[in-house]
């Protein structure tokens, strides 16, 4: 865990309300693993007050990338930062994805919904470096919500896209697409990040097919490094169920560990 208060934005790309920032932060980059995240300070003033968490989208030597969607005030202000500005960030935080070893020749699947695609690029590259063959399932509401399509393709990942409105790829939820494809083959692992509802459905699928699966959870975070107890989710570990800090023990958990809550709305 490092505090880098001078992580310079060295590149910025955007697609509608999705943004990709490349940050120069050699010390964080050198320690980062797929599934870990950083906490970004949005303002030097007490408004907005708290840092915001973002997955590490990729790393390249001295740099890390974050990929985010404008979802409220903090991300809106962040999106207005310019190349050359410096960000105050903490990272790498959390434990990240686990299943990255002994994957030689194995087929694995990474399923991302919306901004949840962010950590899966880093993961896919890490998995591949461990010998796995990675299929990416990438869903969004509409074509404009799957802006990283080309990025995955150009890296040679096998890509399965879906849009809710059918504007590109499979028409429907990505979980439905996955379900259909799972009739055809069985991966040795599934990794996923996205809306909770999507992940819950994927967890059900994985369970039925007895495929080990890992999920990257989201939560409102007060600190990101385990001191406020703000970010808990219901987790079962070593037979015991309780409120577990996802910033410290997660944000990635296996399907057996997560106690999915029922849709509330």
């Amino acid at each position: 865990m490092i505090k880098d208060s001078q992580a310079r934005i060295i590149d910025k790309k955007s697609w509608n309300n999705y943004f990709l920032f490349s940050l120069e932060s050699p010390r964080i980059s050198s320690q980062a693993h797929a599934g870990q995240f950083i906490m970004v300070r949005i303002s030097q003033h007490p408004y907005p007050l708290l840092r915001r968490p973002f997955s590490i989208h990729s790393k390249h030597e001295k740099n890390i990338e974050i990929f985010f969607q404008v979802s409220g005030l903090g991300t809106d202000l962040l999106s207005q930062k310019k190349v050359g500005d410096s960000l105050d960030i903490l990272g790498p935080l959390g434990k990240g994805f686990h299943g990255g070893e002994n994957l030689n020749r194995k087929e694995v699947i990474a399923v991302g919904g919306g901004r949840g695609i962010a950590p899966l690029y880093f993961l896919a590259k890490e998995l591949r470096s461990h010998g796995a063959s990675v299929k990416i399932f990438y869903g969004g509401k509409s074509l404009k919500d799957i802006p990283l399509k080309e990025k995955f393709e150009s890296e040679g990942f096998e890509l399965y896209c879906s849009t809710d409105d059918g504007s590109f790829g499979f028409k429907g939820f990505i979980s439905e697409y996955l379900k259909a494809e799972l009739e055809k083959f069985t991966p040795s692992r599934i990794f996923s990040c996205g809306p909770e509802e999507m992940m819950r459905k994927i967890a059900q699928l994985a369970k039925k097919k007895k495929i080990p699966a890992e999920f990257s959870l989201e939560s409102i975070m007060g600190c990101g490094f385990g001191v406020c107890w703000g970010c808990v989710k219901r987790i079962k570990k070593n037979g015991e169920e309780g409120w577990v800090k996802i910033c410290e023990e997660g944000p990635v958990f296996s399907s057996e560990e997560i106690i999915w809550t029922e849709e509330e709305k």
Partner: protein
Amino acid sequence: MTDLSIDLGFIKLKNPVIASSGTFGYGLEFDPFIDLNKLGGIVTKGLYFSPRPGNPPPRLVESSSGLINAVGLQGVGVKKFSEEILPQLRQYSTAIIVNVCGERDEEYASVVEFLDKEEGISAYELNISCPNVEKDGVCPALDPETTFSVVSLVKKNSSRPLITKLSPNVTDIAEIALSAQEAGTDALSLVNTFLALAVDSEARKPVLPNVFGGLSGPAIKPLALRMVYQVVSRVKIPVIGMGGIISAKDVLEYLITGARAVEVGTANLIDPEATVKIIDGLTEYCQKNGIDKIESIIGTLKKS
């Protein structure tokens, strides 16, 4: 050489900056970021006798310059604390203050009784003011009698100095302060969080399942500072001020108003280096202004 040390009577602090309960974990989590030995003190996360599950999430919601939390004092209980955490904390040379909680007076007393056998604790901070444990925000510090009752019982069972942490959710905080003083507390700390509600207008429900939470952060500073002002003129024991401190300037305001030390809370979440930066800022201020001993500015607020 600037002397930042503060004498609270029962305990001497390296400097007036203490990390506040619930925003500093058990202290150790900050080791990667700062040298804990630099702090005036550390108040550990609220501790009940038994482990506590805490409230269901979401537990946090941000407001304008503020944070509303309903963590609900999730914690490990005295046994695990003594066995696993305290031994590590002991290695640091800073005042370790344990934030003591209880569902009834007796639980507070038994926490203190249990911890009294352990070494390496400088004082207890009696948390009788957490607004997000009981659903309606009720806590002993809302009433002078319940305050007196719990403070005097705990004092009887403790061999260590006692700091009583007051609630801001009262009409007359000085009245509660006097009651705690009468019951034998060695010092007061104020304030705990302000009882708050956040509503999700889309879902038409409270954002926090606990309904109420406690407001902290810069938003509350003017209110907390006012309460310190009201209390210091009425009590004889030292007052530790807190609420919305994020800079050395904030600390100066509290000290000038009459607090003998301060606690820094929410700022730790935003910047894990906050406490140390504030301490450096105090040194710088003293040097610039020719102040040898920071104690000399305590309570120097002029009548307007």
